[in-house]
């Protein structure tokens, strides 16, 4: 995973709530067996509408998605995170994220930042008026800043450290693998096993 320290880029206003993962990437695009190439499926249905924000030239460079509340609801497909990253997004700002989507994004290094709805509204207005407004999302200082304004956000220290170091969880767990083996020794014998097949 790439380290995330700070990112500066322009924003794309997505004035919709409850953007579910079927909208982020419809199921028909999930048949690939790689983690790349999903950008063509990003918001596929909505992209048929020429007025959809992703189709507007002033937002072509956007790398920070500014979304309404409850972003990423629905399915557990990590393909939603891959599609956003494959397209070029580095950060998603929203009032609320669905739990599984947020967990997936933190595994992949797509930063999801929670801001109050009134700040999201202000950002929408600013970006709609001046699409090339540069927004800086800084994980070291836990802040989102633009036009001289700076907003603090919270994120748990562990996830922040992991993202800033670009560490992958599996490697970290392997440092505790002896504890796993010990735990397995005392597991109840009545717990089911899938093998041998009964």
């Amino acid at each position, binding site marked *: 995973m790439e380290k995330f320290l700070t990112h500066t880029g322009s924003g794309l206003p997505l004035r919709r709530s409850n953007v579910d993962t079927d909208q982020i990437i419809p199921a028909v695009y999930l048949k690939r*067996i790689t983690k790349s190439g999903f950008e063509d499926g990003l918001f596929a249905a909505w992209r048929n509408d020429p007025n959809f924000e992703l189709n507007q030239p002033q937002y072509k460079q956007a790398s920070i998605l500014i979304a309404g509340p409850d972003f990423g609801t629905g399915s557990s497909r990590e393909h939603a995170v891959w599609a956003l990253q494959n397209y070029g997004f580095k950060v998603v700002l929203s009032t609320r994220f669905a739990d599984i989507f947020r967990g997936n994004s933190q595994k992949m290094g797509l930063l999801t930042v929670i801001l109050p709805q009134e700040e999201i509204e202000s950002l929408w207005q600013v970006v709609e008026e001046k699409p090339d407004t540069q927004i800086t999302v800084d994980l070291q200082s836990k802040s989102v800043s633009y036009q001289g304004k700076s907003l603090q956000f919270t994120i748990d220290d562990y996830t922040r450290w992991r993202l800033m170091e670009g560490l992958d969880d*599996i490697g970290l767990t392997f440092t505790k693998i002896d504890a796993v083996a010990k735990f397995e020794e005392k597991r109840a014998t009545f717990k*089911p096993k899938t093998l041998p097949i009964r």
Partner: protein
Amino acid sequence: MGKTLAEKIWAEHVVSATAGEPDLLYIDLHLIHEVTSPQAFDGLRLSNRKVRRPDLTIATEDHNVPTLNIDKPIADPVSKLQVDTLRKNCAEFGLRIHSLGDVDQGIVHVVGPQLGITQPGMTIVCGDSHTSTHGAFGALAFGIGTSEVEHVLATQTLPLIRPKTMAINVEGSLKAGVTSKDIILAVIAKIGTGGGQGYILEYRGSAIRALSMEARMTICNMSIEAGARAGLIAPDQTTFDYVKGKPHAPTGADWDAALAYWQSLNTDADAKFDKEVNLNADELAPFVTWGTNPGQGLPLTSAVPNPADFANAEDRGAAERALQYMDLKPGTPLKSIKVDTIFLGSCTNGRIEDLRSAASILKGKKIASSVRLLVVPGSARVRLQAESEGLDKVFLDAGGEWRSAGCSMCLGMNPDQLKPGERAASTSNRNFEGRQGKGGRTHLVSPLVAAATALKGTLASPADL
């Protein structure tokens, strides 16, 4: 202070805990399917890692598979490649797989319980958000992403921050024609699609205790639609009776030890939930969704709401967008809405009891000439059981289609899809835009409402026939 059921199961699975870090949780069972696993196996190969516990892992083919001509090669080359990849990965890493044509193939959340590998007190994960289904057994079960699938394959653990707990108390008794699907649709309408974010739900109360195991699975299945990664129900005699005798259920002394443990799995009387929500079962009616998220639902006797009546700007905007997509006008009685397709199936309502309840309404009758009825059993065994009871004949005689097992039109990854503009009454779990096919419109309903709707051609409950 006492502990809630979720807190007890969590505590028993903590491998290591360090202040300021997520707990490392042991996973008792890992279910796998073709869509969310290929990249995880690639990750293992890249790092030269093995599957730590093949004996706690099981795979089945469900999301992508056709429900017609399953003895022939899969026609869609991309679907075929994904299914073939799962087969290759299982062979390479020594994992048990139930492939298309196998008697134990089916939707992963139907297969686990019917094999008896879903048991109380377990931690169960799968790269599918409807893993919450298994919570019906008093297990802590939740959906995970592909990075986490790789993590569990490699280590049989997951680092997780413990969610808060919420009690959903449903007291009273359901009226005839009202089902567990109506309970959960009412819960989601009440707390919203984000209401359960950050929580594990525990469904409690006399109305929940009175439900069969399969009805409980329907409720826990849709916990994720309320934003909760997991939802569970304390195990009781209904649970124990269901598990007993299943292929992987404990036997002999193991059964006695397991039963003693399972009987300890309940929320202590003095435990405190972080939040409580109350519902009166006596007041519930058959429910149907009118919008494009599962929280946009109402009793079937209602009319399409007017977005202007929503106090909250966010809800108002969502309702306006939903009505536009659904092509519905405010004030239209829900019962006057005509549908084109009825889908009976999915991990929510594709079990034998669901098929029986729909068949009880359809028996000896014909569906409306304007509709098609697609019946897709949740597993190959459910299909066989239904056929042994003559239910396939009931559906076929009524004018319906009788298919092979899989996720099918719930998410339209296989050829079973709605056409643009088509409207469905569906026993599945998500009415998202385009979920069942690009441009398709979905109303979520119970199997009873699905069957009555098939006969009338408009949204209906059995009482309307």
